[in-house]
């Protein structure tokens, strides 16, 4: 109607165009770099078997770290399960400080949660038992499911190293 309105409409159109023109595309990049470790110059970076096999080897040479039925058809609580698994992993790594030398495996069967892993033998067995009792009980209360911890001990960190890269 008036000149001012026309100007406003015109500026809006040009803004949209500039907004649209802010989208930038590049050429398609097929690089995948998740879960892979870079070769170092000194070739002394240790890798466990799990780290050495990249993600495309899952179900071939590697298996999963979380086992549950939440993602099947009719499975319940998939997002809560995933978040709980992350909590379990962070909790275990924090409570067992510097002791885990493998990934923490979480398996759910019925309402039981089984947490497994390999730890170093750097603290006395009495302390290990204390931590087992504490972790099991606290995780049970937090997750409202009976939790069992199944650990295997290894004398030396070097026992789980598969190769150096």
């Amino acid at each position, binding site marked *: 109607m008036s000149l001012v309105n026309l100007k406003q409409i015109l500026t809006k159109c040009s803004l949209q165009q500039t907004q649209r023109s802010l989208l930038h595309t590049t050429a398609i990049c097929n690089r995948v770099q998740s879960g892979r470790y870079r070769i170092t110059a000194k070739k002394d970076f240790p890798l466990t078997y799990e780290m050495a096999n990249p993600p495309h080897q899952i179900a071939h040479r590697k298996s999963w770290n979380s086992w549950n039925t939440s993602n099947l058809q009719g499975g319940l609580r998939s997002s809560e399960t995933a978040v709980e698994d992350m909590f379990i992993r962070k909790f275990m790594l924090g409570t067992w400080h510097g002791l885990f030398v493998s990934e923490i495996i979480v398996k759910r069967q019925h309402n039981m949660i089984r947490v497994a892993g390999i730890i170093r033998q750097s603290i006395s067995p009495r302390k290990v038992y204390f931590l087992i009792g504490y972790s099991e009980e606290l995780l049970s*209360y937090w997750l409202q499911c009976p939790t069992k911890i199944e650990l295997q001990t290894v004398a030396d960190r070097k026992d789980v190293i598969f190769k150096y890269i």
Partner: protein
Amino acid sequence: MNTIANVLRNRSNLKLNLTQITRLSSNVSEEKIVIPKAIPRGPTDILRALESTVSRDPTATHYKYHDDPFLIPMSNMGKRTFAMAQEAGRKAAYWVREQHPDLFQHQEADPPIKPFFPKMVYSEDEVTEDTLKHVIDEVLIPDAKKIYKLMIEKGMEISKETQQALLDLLCFYNNEDTLSEEFIEERWFRNSAKEKVRKTWADGSLAEEIFISIENPDAAAYSAIIQGMAKHYQVNRAWQLFEEAQGKGLEVNTSTYNSIIRVTSFMKESYDLRWSFVNDILSLMNKAKTKPNLGTLNACLEIVSTMGQSKTAKSYALKLLKEFKSLGIEPSLASWYHVLMTYCKERGPVSTILNDILPHIENKEHTIRDIKDTFFFVTAMDICRNHLHDKDLAQRVNKLLHFGNNYNLIGDSYKESIYYRHYFIVLCETEPLDEFMENIYNKLVPHIYVPEPGVIAEVLKNIDMNSAVEYLPKIWSDMLIFDHTGRENLLNMVMNIMINHKPDESSELNDKFSKIAWGIWSKIENQNENRIQKLAFTGEMLGNIMIMVLRNNDFEKAFEVMQKLDKGMHSVVGVPKLDALSMFMDHCIKEKLPTTAIQCIQYLTDSGFPEAEDFAIRLNKSLTLDETHLGRLGKIVGEQFLQKKM
């Protein structure tokens, strides 16, 4: 369609006809199919049936320990420590949850699981009688006391039943908080042997306050307070209240009479008075027409067992058993425990009553019916060992223990270890050593039972008597694992066995024995300077060690021992046997080391052995000595020997 229906009908007719024909033509009379009544099954019955097929695996530790070689306990200390450490962790988590209840308010389990519900915090406004009832059911004593006090402050009405329930709870637990049933390891390891029989009743506690606050206490209230006081050995007041109740004509319940009987020994001194007192109480029961139960039988038997060794005590016990049997009350394991205590006194005549008791209880599953049932197995095994020395009886008792679920009646860890200690020793004394080692030792040690030093001493004695030295290396390694190597008497026994039973030259036992001897040497050498009870070398011990290593032709070690003998004249008590030094001398000659030989002779003279001269002559004869050596020898032994040689 019609045809199909016809076909089907025909077919079904045919079938019917066929069955009728077969029925008519078969010779077998018609078997009635009887469908049995359905047995009601619980949700876990299948699991229980499967579990009954699995027995204890002696090659593995108890399943409560983590299954990893680093985490397996190897000694009694280890077993206790690991189990209690795990429970301490659980308690720590429990405490964290209690400290931060606001973080644990979620309730996600579906179907809901009661132990995971968030904790209740009782504030002033929300207490009602229902919360009190709930808390009493859950046996949360501090909470119950708090809620009761809050309710009294607010002047709220409390019904009689709830008040009675609270009174019962407080009397039973003596106003103290009890260990939660969740903490099973602490209960298992609680040293119940040290329970002192002294007054622990809290005077002027909340229980008494409640009792006083009731205007007209009825029979139930009196029963509760009397039982509580009697249980915690506040005997005088319990008796006072009992007389009061009798005076008022109130009918207290059976358990009250039982608890009064149980504390008879505190009220009457002499045995006759005690027996008459028990009779009085029983007649009171009769007058009040209260039926006696198993608790009455056990309480009477308990008093009889404290009545010293007299024929009358034994006759009373038998009379009691007979009378209660006629009432239809089956004696429990606690009754048999009291009977054993009555009959099998330490300083009394040997009684074989266990032989008569066992047929009554064998091959049956027992459940806990009285708190003293757990004493039976330990006492029975004790009697088999100390009183009767009978291994067949011991085996029968053991079989009964392992029948069905009877193992639950072993009590706690202390009783279990004592039971196995007695079992071990009685079999060690009576069975031939080979069978003992194979069937008992190798099966039970170390996972089911870790022997104490005394038991190891018995086994070593047995090995000594049977000259069965091939078992010695295993016993020694077990001693190392169980940390018994600090005991001087055990070390001496091991040494004596090795010395007295010389194995053949070529046998590998020589090597093992020398290793054991060297183990003892290094243990004493390297022990911590600050230990209070230090083990010291004696001359004889060193001599024995020398013999062991020399039998294995290990000269270097023998040389070390010799040095120790020589230099440590002040710290080493006594002198070694002559054989040791003689063997050493022979080896010196073999190895052609005259200096060492002369050193040995020097030691001989210093220690005052008269045979030093003979040694010197022997040395001179076997080895050609040069001037210096001859000179030194001459100085030590004297010039005469040179003449003797000449």
